[in-house]
């Protein structure tokens, strides 16, 4: 599957994230040894998406207070770490994570895409961790990404991937 990055100025080079659908995404996550979902500020504006993710079995870290609260409201335990500090931890293979093990797959959702792209760029260039962009908009610099999706379809993708 080929798709153009959502943001027209998103052109990092010759490497393009592999476009995956929910089936492939589900497989990717279930094969990972220690995946983590990184939930950014913009997720707090997406009620349906928070509903879905609060029911997933995977570990979640919220990167802003509002998103943390969105999960808390749904009685879902999540960690908090600021995005920049978190990415700095993730790129260090010795960092033990929130659960005592290093993560091998970072799943991004709800991060302002210009910031997301930069954080993905750090991980792609300076770490071994695999990245999956589960946002509505395709970005090229992740290892894997959903395609550009209408909001309703994206919600379907999230459901089928994470539940």
């Amino acid at each position, binding site marked *: 599957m080929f798709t153009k990055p959502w943001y027209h100025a998103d052109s*990092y080079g010759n490497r393009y994230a592999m476009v995956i659908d929910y089936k492939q995404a589900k497989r990717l996550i279930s094969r990972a040894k220690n995946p983590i979902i990184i939930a950014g500020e913009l997720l707090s504006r997406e009620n349906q998406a928070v509903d879905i993710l609060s029911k997933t079995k995977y570990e979640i870290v919220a990167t802003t207070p509002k998103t*943390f609260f969105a999960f808390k409201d749904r009685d879902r335990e999540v960690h908090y770490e600021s995005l920049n500090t978190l990415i*700095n931890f993730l790129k260090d293979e010795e960092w033990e994570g929130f659960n005592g093990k290093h993560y091998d797959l970072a799943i991004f959702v709800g991060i*302002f895409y210009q910031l997301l792209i*930069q954080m993905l760029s750090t991980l792609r260039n300076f770490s071994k961790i695999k990245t999956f962009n589960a946002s509505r908009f395709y970005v090229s610099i992740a290892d894997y990404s959903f395609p550009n999706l209408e909001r309703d379809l994206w919600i379907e993708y999230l459901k089928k991937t994470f539940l």
Partner: protein
Amino acid sequence: MMELDKISMDNILVKIKKVDTNIIKGENITLEFGKVREETWEEKEGPQIKPNVFTLRNWDFKLLSRYKPFYSPLCDFCCKCVFGKCDLSEGKKGACGIDMTTQQAREFCLHVTIGTACHLAHARHMVDYLIKKLGRDYKINLGLEINVEAPITRTIIGIKPEVLGDLDEALRYAEEEVTNVLASIATGQEASAIDYESKALHMGMIDNLVKEIADIAQIVGYNYPKGDEDAPLAEIGMGVVDTRKATILTIGHNAIVGIEILDYIDKNNLNDKVEVVGICCTSHDLVRKNSRVKIIGPMSAQLRFLRAGIADVIVIDEQCIRTDVVEEARKRKSFVIATSDKACHGLEDRTNDPADKIIMDLISNGKAGVLIHDPKKAAEVAVKLAMLVNPLRYEYKRLPDINEVIEDLKKCTKCYNCQRNCPVNLEIPEAIEKAKHGNLFELSIIREECIACGRCESSCPKDIKIVTAMEKAVEYIVKNEKSKIRAGRGPIKDTEIRKVGQPIVFGEIPGVILFAGCSNYYNGTRELGEMAEEFLKRNYIVVTSGCAAMTIASYKDEEGKSLYEKYPGSFDAGCLVNLGSCVANSHAIGAAIKIANIFARRPLRGNFEVIADYILNRVGAVAVVWGTMSQKAIAIATGANRWGIPVILGPHGAKYRRLLLGRRDKENDWIVYDARTGKRVVADPVPEHLLVVAESKEEAMIWISKLVMRPNDTSKGRMIKVAHYIDLYKKFFGKLPNDLHLYIRNENEIPFNYKDEILKMLKEKGWKPKTIPDPTLLERNIKE
């Protein structure tokens, strides 16, 4: 009798026809002396006068070993020379041998150097102009309450500048340093990331220096407020203009031409006929000269105000001017006068022609503007031209009719190009869909987050005027958009430092926060005002400048009062200080230096390291650059970093490619000397980062409360700082921060309100009390 090693001579040329003595014989001998001045500063010279790239490298390495560079490449390629373009991804090297890490450091260094060059060229122009106008010996006098007139210059250059001519000497040093670092960025020069980092920090420090010079020159040369906490309030907002008058809009950062315009208007008694308004820092500085001038707003107001067509004449000087200003002006039949060598905008140079001839030609030949690099002539042309064309431009001084706007929007095919080029990903096509049927509400909502960059329009295949449509949606609101801003007061007074120095260093005033930088916000303008007010209420000292100061002014309470009307302008707890334009934010760093000097008696002269070490370990200052856009913003931030002041960037700041992050979980990164014993001890991990990006306003506020902590805080001071951290954290998360145990060194630092809860948490974490060192990174600070 004078001692020759204590005097110098200024531009003295001695020509000797013939000399015939026991010691020397000869004919036609020329002796030239650099400068003459009696030494009046008794402070002993330190080891770092006019530091070059080598001098402070060790200091930088110390900082960088704790705060490691965090790189985020903007792309995989380097296209800096024609040996390339080179793909540096996946461990590949460029044709010159450079790797991805070093290339990022190089790019970052280039950004900082460009920003520094902007402020330096501005300072050079200002100093040369004022020297020509007032003379080299024109006194620098900032009033009785400011003895330490130029703390950055004193520290770096090692002089106490007394006359304008002294500033020239300081600029020559800066020019040499910028040239050297710029040269190092060429292909085949510097090869190490850490050295590029050190050079970037060097440039940042030079940036701070030249800003101080530019601002001091204009304060004395134009008699701006000299640290006046009661500087007058001025009007600000898109709705401040008296549209009946001829309107001159100034855009940029250099007030020389603007001040000539004000003088021309005064001399010719034209105040009731001509309105002078401004966008960006020039208007800050014009308000410092004359509070009658009105400010339209920060850079994000530019395209909107041009579209409104109110300006008859637009005078541009330098920096932060839209590149399409002439094209936009032409659409509304406004005229542009370019005045600076930095921004000629392709306009015809008419500097040597008579003013009236230039005006007549402009009106008759249909050209959109001219270049006039003689400030007096530019001023005369601007005023006369504005008065002449004002009555003729009536039909252009308004937005298009609503039906015209809706017809334009009906061309939309929902191709999404606009949204896919919008830096904030605003859902423009959806808003247009509703507006097509006459409901412009959604457009008015997205305008709140729009930074008016115009990218949506230029990517629209149907050429729809999206920005104009958004302005139409809020036309009525904008007409009444007025607020108040305090004119920039310039430096912090020595008397104020005497009062607050101790409470800041002991931590009883929880911190000094500088809000600076551009207006490239990702979530609207309100956030800056909300952050400022939160910390004003908490008794922090809030300092601001540039576009940030303007944005803060737009935040009003229910009674319509701005924060400048509600909070005093002193440098004191719970006060809001507008320093002025971007160059004036050097006084925030100046204030931190003055605390080291006036309160703690640390010598300045040639002692950069000692002062920076003091600030890093003791002065709880932090800067927030929320709307990052220009290279200048990162130059400012990098300078602050070298002095030991942490900076929080808004989300766009990640695109500068490099941040400086500490690791609170790595104890060994926080080892300092205890100056009392000389032992190396582990201090608490504060401040955690030197340059960090925050994703949201709330996160930034948490960072502010943490990054003002210093290892030297007294227990009482730390308790106050920790209390604010906990309070904000509880407000946002409803629980205690997970890392709280790292910042409490003994039980006296536990805020009373949460004592039991915290004690329980500390027990769970296995917390043990720590001694508070007399912290320093410098071996030479160890007391014998």
